[in-house]
């Protein structure tokens, strides 16, 4: 077992040989205008800039939202436009949780290779992959929303433009078009991305290809980064930390908390960037690599309920220790569990509070709309809800009337309460995730010990191959 452990640690720390002919695919944007937040667009622009700075300007393809077709595909908060301010009461009445200032515009990416509508995207990807030479090195980076298949999480999907869905099996079918001996790496920061672990399952991709990847959350959890947040210092999604580690500077150009280059070979591998993210991301994501998920899925029935025994030899233990240290936690299980129980109860309470405010907002909105229908029976409110600019005169009239109602003041108060409550909830969820991360890596260190003891030689070879694939990816 010691020899196996030395080999694995060797893979982690050895100066890795990085592949040269790399090709990147950036796929981004929301699935519809009302769910295509500016944060996604900003991430894609930042990633494109990183690729340019690293000298890959001719080695990537970018697919985003509506692509080169005319029209809007990005939602953002704009309080500066006078028409938005003038109609804020009307917008508050019809928007989810009474949010104001929501505006839409076209993406500001200078040039895309196309949109992300499923059929068009699949056609483009097939064409791209078929034109590659053998031994290609492919990195697929997605920045958008993900969907949850409750009945079969192995078929979770990417939410693409025009409300189309690209499932795990559909993505693997398209990845199968890559040339022989290719190495495919995927970086998926979307909600429920853990389901895409199934891309590595044997038989899905041909044996002569290597595939591995990084996912922000498990197949059942929502990820960070689906908000209309405009302050880039508040961007906490997986991409923000992962790519900051790869380029050794955060997205605002500031230095990082620590050097992500663990083996001091002057190049940060994807795995090192992932480890940096795990250690320092204060987000609610409990991100995972395919090698970590492989260990978790391997766990046989006769070890599942066992108490976790400390395995300080494992690198996963070091990760657990460093996450604990960075978050003023202890690795002691009892201490961790007692903190977890208290925080979990508080999160549940806060979720309930937020839900109650949401209900109050929705009730108040309905009450005011009923009042409007009685007061202005001849005005088409559905039209105003869809596009107030089409009937601006009536929209302004109604907006002024709404502001004079006592219910409007209450709605504004609820809206503010909701923002505060949601902010506090996210803060608590982020703290809870740190405890879960420590626990998860303690558990992984123990699973690794059991794996090296009981796994078959072919399973150990598969695990090592995943580690090698994750470690050899870099920019």
């Amino acid at each position, binding site marked *: 077992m010691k020899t196996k452990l030395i080999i694995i640690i060797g893979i982690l720390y050895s100066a890795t040989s990085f592949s040269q002919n790399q090709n990147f695919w950036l796929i981004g944007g929301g699935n519809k205008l009302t769910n295509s937040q500016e944060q996604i667009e900003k991430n894609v622009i930042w990633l494109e800039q990183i690729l340019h700075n690293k000298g890959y300007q001719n080695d990537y393809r970018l697919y985003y939202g509506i692509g080169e077709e005319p029209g809007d595909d990005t939602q953002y908060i704009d309080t500066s436009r006078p028409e938005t301010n003038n109609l804020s009461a009307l917008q508050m009445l019809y928007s989810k949780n009474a949010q104001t200032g929501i505006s839409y515009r076209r993406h500001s990416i200078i040039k895309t290779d196309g949109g992300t509508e499923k059929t068009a995207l699949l056609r483009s990807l097939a064409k791209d992959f078929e034109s590659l030479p053998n031994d290609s090195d492919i990195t697929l980076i997605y920045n958008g929303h993900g969907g949850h298949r*409750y009945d079969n*999480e192995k078929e979770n999907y990417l939410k693409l433009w025009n409300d189309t869905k690209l499932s795990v099996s559909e993505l693997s079918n398209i990845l199968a078009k890559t040339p022989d001996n290719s190495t495919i790496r995927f970086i998926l920061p979307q909600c429920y991305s853990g389901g895409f672990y199934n891309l590595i399952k044997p038989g899905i991709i041909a044996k002569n290809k290597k595939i591995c990847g990084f996912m922000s959350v498990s197949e*059942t959890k929502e990820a960070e980064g689906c908000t209309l947040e405009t302050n880039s210092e508040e961007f906490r999604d997986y991409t923000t930390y992962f790519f900051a580690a790869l380029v050794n500077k955060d997205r605002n150009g500031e230095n990082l908390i620590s050097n992500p280059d663990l083996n001091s070979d002057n190049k940060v591998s994807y795995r090192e960037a992932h480890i940096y993210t795990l250690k320092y991301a204060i987000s609610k994501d409990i991100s995972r690599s395919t090698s970590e998920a492989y260990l978790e899925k391997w766990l046989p029935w*006769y070890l599942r*309920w066992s*108490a976790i025994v400390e395995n300080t030899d494992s690198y996963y233990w070091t990760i657990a220790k460093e996450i604990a240290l960075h978050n003023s936690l202890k690795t002691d299980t009892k201490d961790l*569990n007692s903190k*977890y129980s208290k925080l979990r109860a508080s999160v549940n309470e806060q979720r309930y509070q937020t839900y109650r405010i949401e209900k109050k907002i929705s009730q108040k909105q309905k009450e005011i709309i009923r009042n409007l229908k009685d007061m202005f029976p001849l005005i088409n409110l559905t039209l105003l809800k869809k596009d107030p600019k089409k009937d601006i005169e009536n929209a302004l009239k109604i907006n002024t009337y709404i502001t004079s109602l006592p219910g409007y003041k209450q709605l504004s108060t609820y809206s503010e309460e909701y923002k505060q409550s949601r902010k506090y909830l996210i803060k608590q969820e982020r703290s809870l995730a740190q405890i879960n991360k420590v626990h998860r890596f303690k558990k992984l260190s123990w699973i690794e010990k059991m794996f090296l003891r009981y796994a078959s030689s072919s399973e150990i070879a598969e695990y090592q191959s995943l580690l090698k694939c994750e470690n050899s990816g870099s920019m």
Partner: protein
Amino acid sequence: MHSQQLQNYLKTALGVITIYPLSSALLLFLSWIIDNQGLQLVFDELSRRKFILLFVSDWLKALPFIIILYIIFHFLRKHSHRIHNNIIILCTLLLCLFIALVIQSQILAAILLFTYAATYLLSPTQQMTSK
């Protein structure tokens, strides 16, 4: 007589089926006592549906092992006029300790314990009936 036999078979089947859930419940209880560790933290990332599926799949995987173990214990107890019953109990306990501490599979140890208990309750030894 026939109905008595059927009743015995049913009791045995029920006993064998409940061994895995009982063993997991015991382990959960112990981890709750020792570490204050609830089910939520262990399986925080699983949905309720997935947790049930995982549990049932583990249960099915454990069943053949439990059945084989039950047959062995049943055979040993049936012939316990030759092999002393206390020796079986001692060996079972030692084996449990070995599995829990060396193999580090507490669930296997618990299954061993509960299977022996089930055999003890469901299959009488030959001692009483033998000459």
